[in-house]
């Protein structure tokens, strides 16, 4: 019998962890001489108070959904994919190549193939760490960290030496052609009579991200492959005993994970910047870790956590704009969320388990 009811595990613990992170963040804001209540008000106003704010919140959330799902699916297989950042960088390269090399007649077609390109490049970047983990037992955390740095060097080289237009000093590709412009939420919602801010970057890839959440949910809980992935994550010897090939399952899980991280590029490279720049990912790969932890590796949880972090990101930008609180406050909040929902999970869990056990004894 479980020590705790399921709702406590799924809802109560993340909420308490989030509360602890929020309290500490408020203390940090107090510590640098600002008013936390005013800060929260400003954040809510800036991120959710207008369609412009929502446009940015949802744009960031789209990035985090992809990277969060990437971490989550690897976690179901018992793997910690910390390489989302590098995989997303390479995904950007895939998108850039698809958009620049082929003259697309319409954005729909371009979107499909750009997503494929991004997924392919991201998966390829996850493939070597996955293979080394599956076949040679090299720790995937270390190899994916190394691959993040290698990806940064590769991208730097490609942008400076190969894809930079002649005469330009900026290490970035040229602008993508007009035909591959993805419709923003403004363009999508205007025909049905909903007014949405013109200048916000949220675009059609939000729907792709929501689709990816659904896909991952189906995959994990409704397919034999998902069952194999979860079995492997719960117990490797158990999975092997049941005839599940660990090499094959690790490879597939990591390839899907890398592809999801790579597909983030459809949003930030194709949807927003419309060209590939250095450091296009802006750490979204790492935020995926916080999002997956917060969302308990469930696609719906990831969806909610991604929107929460999108809000924090946009709110943090507003704070930096209007107060003397630097943007790095978000990094601190992110660290605290990772700390409490991830590393210090037992600190919240152990006392709660005791409380629930005591309550059950009281009933009997």
């Amino acid at each position, binding site marked *: 019998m479980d020590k705790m009811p399921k709702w406590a595990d799924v809802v109560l613990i993340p909420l308490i962890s989030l509360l602890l992170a929020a309290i500490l963040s408020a203390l940090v804001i107090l510590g640098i001489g600002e008013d936390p209540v005013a800060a929260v008000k400003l954040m809510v106003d800036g991120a959710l108070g207008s369609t412009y704010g929502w446009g940015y919140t949802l744009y960031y959330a789209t990035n985090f959904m992809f990277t969060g799902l990437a971490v989550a699916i690897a976690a179901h297989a018992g793997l910690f994919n910390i390489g989302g950042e590098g995989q997303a960088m390479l995904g950007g390269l895939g998108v850039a190549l698809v958009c620049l090399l082929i003259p697309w007649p319409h954005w729909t077609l371009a979107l499909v193939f750009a997503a494929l390109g991004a997924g392919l490049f991201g998966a390829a970047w996850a493939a070597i760490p996955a293979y080394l983990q599956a076949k*040679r037992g090299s720790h995937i955390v270390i190899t994916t960290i*190394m691959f993040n740095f*290698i990806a940064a060097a590769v991208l*730097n080289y490609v942008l400076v030496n190969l894809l930079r237009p002649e005469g330009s000093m900026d290490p970035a590709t040229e602008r993508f052609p007009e035909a591959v412009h993805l419709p923003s939420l403004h363009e999508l919602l205007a025909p049905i009579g909903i007014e949405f801010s013109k200048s916000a970057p949220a675009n059609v890839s939000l729907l792709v991200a929501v689709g990816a959440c659904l896909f991952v949910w189906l995959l994990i809980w409704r397919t034999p492959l998902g069952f194999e992935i979860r079995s492997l994550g719960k117990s490797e010897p158990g999975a092997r005993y049941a005839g599940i090939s660990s090499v094959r399952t690790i490879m597939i899980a990591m390839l899907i994970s890398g592809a999801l991280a790579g597909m983030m590029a459809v949003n930030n490279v194709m949807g927003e910047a419309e060209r590939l720049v250095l450091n296009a990912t802006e750490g979204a790969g790492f935020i995926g870790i916080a999002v997956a*932890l917060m969302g308990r590796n469930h696609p719906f949880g990831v969806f909610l956590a991604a929107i929460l972090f999108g809000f924090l990101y946009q709110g943090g930008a507003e704070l930096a704009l209007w107060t003397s609180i630097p943007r790095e406050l978000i990094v*601190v909040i992110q660290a605290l969320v990772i*700390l409490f929902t991830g590393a210090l999970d037992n600190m919240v869990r*152990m006392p709660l388990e005791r409380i629930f056990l005591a309550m059950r004894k009281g009933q009997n």
Partner: protein
Amino acid sequence: MDFLTIIQLLDSTVRLATPLLLACLAGLFSERAGIFDIGLEGKMLMAAFFSAAVAAVTGNVWLGLLAGIGSSLLLAALHGVASITFRGNQLISGVAINFLAAGMTVLIAQDWFQQGGRTPSLIGGGRFTPFDLPFAESLSGVPVLGPVYSELLSGHSILVYIAFLAVPATWWVLFRTRFGLRLRAVGENPAAVDTAGVSVVGLRYAAVLICGLLCGIAGAYLATALQAGFVKDMTAGRGFIALAALIFAKWRPWHAMGACLLFGLLQAIALRFQNIELGGITIPVQAMDALPYVLTVVILAGFVGKAIPPRAGGEPYVKER
């Protein structure tokens, strides 16, 4: 490339290898005791900031060093609480510590100095000055060995010598003392150590705190000796290169020194030359940046001898009841 260029290159290799070496030895203690630490970067960054900040305010670099070590120890203790006491995931705790340091340093720097997340430049007593070995001046005239002694070996900050002395010290502690034997045992088979009546928790905390101490010195070196002040994200992945060096060295102190010198040399080359012409082929500077990581992946893949980490690494120890 003439002789003087080579000397200068090696001189900058030593300077650049020092923070890597300190962080690498820090990781060595922690991982040998079975606690993975990918938070080396964060601890260094935190120490870099606090050492520079305190040195800037007080004008005393030694107080800065102490503050740096203190802040690094605090993060190390946090890692200990999360991964030893609460048996959390050590990797996730390390990730959190890296972000915590990246955010807090800029936040506090902005609050204290209002210079866009940096500290004021350190002058005078706020920095570690070069430390001349005896007779460096008078021997510099001797051909070949003179410049090697006076340019390459002499004239570094005291922390450089501490870092290189820490190598034999680490070897001696780990392989010649009872504490070292127990520390290594706790990373391989904590249950056996527990059975022998030695505290697993105590040993692991000791290892994690030594790790914090060394990371603190590494960070202080970065901000008060190698450079004159703290700037945002100044560790620039050095904690991860140190981690790579640790694996490259297969968790052994002397090899760690070799690996750190090699990676330091790569950094020195990348810093001095941009693209290198080598018999008609141009090696881009990015290849130099990526080489430490590529080499580590190759080692991890087991193509050049297998890198076997301490067996109980990453696993929290749960006492049987």
